[in-house]
């Protein structure tokens, strides 16, 4: 595995945009270099009714950044007395990461969200120091991101409905992680629509 800090724990996440729906998925492996310790370490966190964030990278920073972001979003909701919008969440996250510009957290992030009234979809990508990437349809982060990008671009079509979106996301993730020894052991896929959120756990190769 080498001494690359971003592949020390491994893990991968992916998100795709559809027609008034979005899908976000991650693998479930938690390992230390070669050794797999647990297979129930999901990397997706919910911050609002229709806002989700996935963090990939060093596991300790995945936990810390998700909790620190939760702290800030809780205070926002208390002060503003309203729920977060996805673009606000994204800006808070990139700000949090850039605060540590010269001693950064080792996590890459994906933010997805949906406006339940208008059906507008949001999919954002961030590197570990808060670079903004806000006009994309497909985003991937993690140790297997290159392999999943290839498959994702292949399976992606604009304006897919929820079922097609679920299929495309799951196939891209499950087949991409087969080429990476630091991720896998199943997947969790969230499909977020205006009126419901469907969570599915997938069983992939257990190796």
């Amino acid at each position, binding site marked *: 595995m080498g001494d690359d800090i971003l592949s020390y724990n*491994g893990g991968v996440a992916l998100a795709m945009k559809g027609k008034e729906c979005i899908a976000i998925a991650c693998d479930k492996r938690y*390992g230390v270099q*070669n*050794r797999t310790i647990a297979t129930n370490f999901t990397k997706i966190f919910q911050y609002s009714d229709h806002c989700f964030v996935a963090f990939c990278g060093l596991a300790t920073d995945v936990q810390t950044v998700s909790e620190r972001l939760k702290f800030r979003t809780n205070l926002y909701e208390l002060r503003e007395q309203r729920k977060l919008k996805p673009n606000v969440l994204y800006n808070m996250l990139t700000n949090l990461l850039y605060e540590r510009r010269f001693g950064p957290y080792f996590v890459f992030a994906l933010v997805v969200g949906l406006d339940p009234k208008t059906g507008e979809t949001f999919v954002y990508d961030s590197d570990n120091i808060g670079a903004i990437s806000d006009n994309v349809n497909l985003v991937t982060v993690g140790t297997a991101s290159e392999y999943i990008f290839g498959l994702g671009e292949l399976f992606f079509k604009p304006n897919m409905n929820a079922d097609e979106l679920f299929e495309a996301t799951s196939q891209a993730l499950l087949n991409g992680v087969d080429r*990476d*020894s630091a991720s896998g052991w199943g997947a969790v896929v969230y499909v977020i629509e205006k009126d419901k959120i469907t969570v599915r756990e997938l069983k992939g190769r257990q*190796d």
Partner: protein
Amino acid sequence: MDVLNPMTYDAEEDQLRDRTKYSQMDKHLIPVEFQQQPVSTGTTIVAVEYDGGVIIGADTRTSSGTFVMNRFTDKLTQLTDRIFCLRSGSAADTQAIAQVVTYQLDFLSAEMNEPPLVRIAANCVRRMIYQYRDDFLAGMIVAGWDKKLGGQVYSCPLGGLLVRQPVTLGGSGSTYIWGYLDNNYRPNMTQQECYDFVLKGITLAITRDGSSGGCARIAIINKDGVERIDVLGNDLPKVFDL
């Protein structure tokens, strides 16, 4: 400067010699993101003797760093009709050793007009590993059947040791199943018991070791020949789901 003579050894010169070797230049010339990790058969390899032959097995993953280069590698390499070697360590080193030893044994069997003994095959492998011990990264198991001693398993690990063992493990995944071996191996098991033991061991190691994965390839070698069995992912025995 002579490396082996402490009176004339100079550490700085030795390090300079090492840094300017052609194979080491990549580290200094190419940025980290573009440096290739050596291809290694991360691996789990298992071999066990039973009355009348041997059963050998391995996983099927070859990786370069975290990238899985081959998901269905064949790590059971045939040296002669009834002798196989199991390869772990650097893929290039072990493939080169297997090629050279196959030639040597082929030549030997022409000279002696009979199939070579398993111990002789193991010794050829061991000799290569020992001779190039500073350069090779190869841990191999040589197993097979011959007329003189029946089924035999020989272990040839990193430094160039040769030892016969009734059951042995190798590769990075083996660390996770030594306990399983100590608990479940008994001498004089039947062929079916040995097969189940090998398959379960490989499955357990695949589950825990990141450098092992894919499917299980097993071979049963006895006086009647070699039977190869590939157990694909879905058909591996069920182990505790973490």
